[in-house]
């Protein structure tokens, strides 16, 4: 539960947030927060403290710690879910979500399913004129990678296995998001979908106090070929658009992935 201590302008505030499955939790303290502050997010401690240069950012968790000196005397701080392809950096720009059981779709039909996807969280410092700067990105989920396609010219993708849901499952909004997938079977026969490959470019993530969401579609073109893309729409009203770290200047590359090695 979120607790705020202090509150005087300029004084350090402490916010603590935890998640218990099955229990209604208070919303994630996404921010913006005034500096300095300290946060305890389900075992991850984030402290931004004032020093003689400006501020010192520190994140401590069981996985390690990060420290950054911020040379500036003003700014606000907030969290933002970002495309889950930064940790570890530079390995892949594709997310492969494998379903725990295949989804069979009737001929020439369009069906919707819900699955989960891993979240990565960006710690951002923001100043009105200077703009936003990402200080750090971390995740509560374990990273794992896989190959989509063949060894000769396949795609290295971030791997995530999810159960398939018909309605929204309870999830820790700092750990997992809800991915709605519209499966469009354009074939005149039944199609079985095992996985989707999604591009980091053009991912439209939305966040609210207790939910992070993403909307995608997969169009089945043939037995081995399908195409995925994103819909720029939140899962429920009142959600805010997350910061986009992957952006492509080419409109044709925005969010589109052709799956040529099965789905």
């Amino acid at each position, binding site marked *: 539960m979120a607790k705020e201590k202090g509150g005087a302008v300029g004084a350090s505030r402490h916010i603590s947030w935890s998640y218990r499955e099955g229990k209604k939790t208070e919303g994630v303290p996404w921010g913006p927060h005034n500096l300095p502050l300290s946060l305890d997010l389900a075992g991850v401690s984030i402290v931004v403290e004032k020093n003689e240069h400006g501020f010192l950012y520190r994140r401590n968790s069981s996985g390690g710690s990060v420290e950054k000196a911020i040379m500036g005397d003003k700014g606000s701080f907030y969290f933002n879910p970002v495309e889950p392809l930064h940790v570890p950096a530079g390995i892949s720009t594709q997310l492969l979500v494998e379903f725990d059981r295949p989804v069979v779709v009737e001929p020439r039909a369009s069906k919707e399913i819900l699955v989960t996807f891993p979240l990565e969280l960006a710690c951002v410092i923001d100043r009105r004129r200077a703009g936003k700067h990402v200080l750090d990105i971390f995740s509560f989920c374990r990273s794992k990678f896989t190959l989509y396609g063949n*060894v000769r010219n*396949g795609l*290295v993708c971030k791997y995530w296995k999810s159960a398939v849901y018909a309605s929204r499952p309870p999830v820790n909004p700092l750990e997992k998001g809800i991915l709605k997938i519209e499966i469009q079977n354009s074939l005149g026969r039944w199609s079985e979908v095992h996985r989707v490959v999604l591009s980091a470019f053009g991912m439209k993530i939305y966040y609210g106090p207790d939910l992070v969401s993403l909307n995608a579609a997969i169009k089945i073109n043939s037995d081995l070929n399908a195409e995925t893309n994103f819909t720029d729409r939140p899962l429920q009203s009142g959600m805010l658009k997350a910061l986009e770290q992957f952006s492509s200047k080419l409109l044709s590359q925005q969010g589109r992935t052709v799956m040529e090695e099965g789905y």
Partner: protein
Amino acid sequence: MFEWLDHTVYSNVTWFDLIVAVLIYFAALLASKILTLQLRRRFKDKINKENLELLAKALSYGIMIIAIVWILPTIGIEPSGLIVAGGIVALAIGFAGQSIIGNLISGIFLMGERPIKIGDLVEISGNLGFVEDIHIISTSIRTLEGNFIRIPNETVFSSSITNYTSTPVRRFEYVVGIRYADDAVKAIQVIKDIINAHPLALVNPAPHVYVENLGDNSVDIMVRIWSPSTEWFGVKMELLWKIKTAIEEAGIEIPFPQRVVWFGAEEENNGRAVSP
């Protein structure tokens, strides 16, 4: 109306000849522009910019030289003398620059075939390193020790090339020996858990862990893991130590090679028969 075209301008050259010569020149100019444009478009992603410009210029000059050789008789200049002189010069240059020409042609073939590209980790004629640049005459690589090696393209073209990063993933393997007294099934499970916990040990292609050999001193467990080609070395180094530590923590030992020697006197003292 067009009788003036047959009027002689000088020696046997008429106005018609001059107009034909000008038309051929401009047609060649247009053809060279179109062909170089097509060349730049088609090979934009395959050949680096400097080399592509060089090829485009060579094509453009080649077309213009052919056009000029074609025009010369039309405007009353006999090129046979020039061709003979040019041929002799070309022959001399050819002998002198045999290796340069060989490297140049190899460079052009390499650019077309593209067995390597800048940034790849390759092994060419015993030199292991990252490709720094591919020029029209030579290819430069930076070895893992940081040395810079320039290899003539003829050598690159004629030798076998191992490209370690041309595929997105790469497999590596270890053989982990355990004592005969240890539980191999447990050891396999410990190793699998370590692999599963590592983000860059790929889910697919799946890792394989199995007993491969019953050796003289140990039960040998084969561990095969795939990881992204760009990361494989770090993953290989990291996982080896993690596996060693984990199996030791599980009470499983990696045995040293050992041989038990029984002396005759000891055997008699122990009341055993000494077999020959």
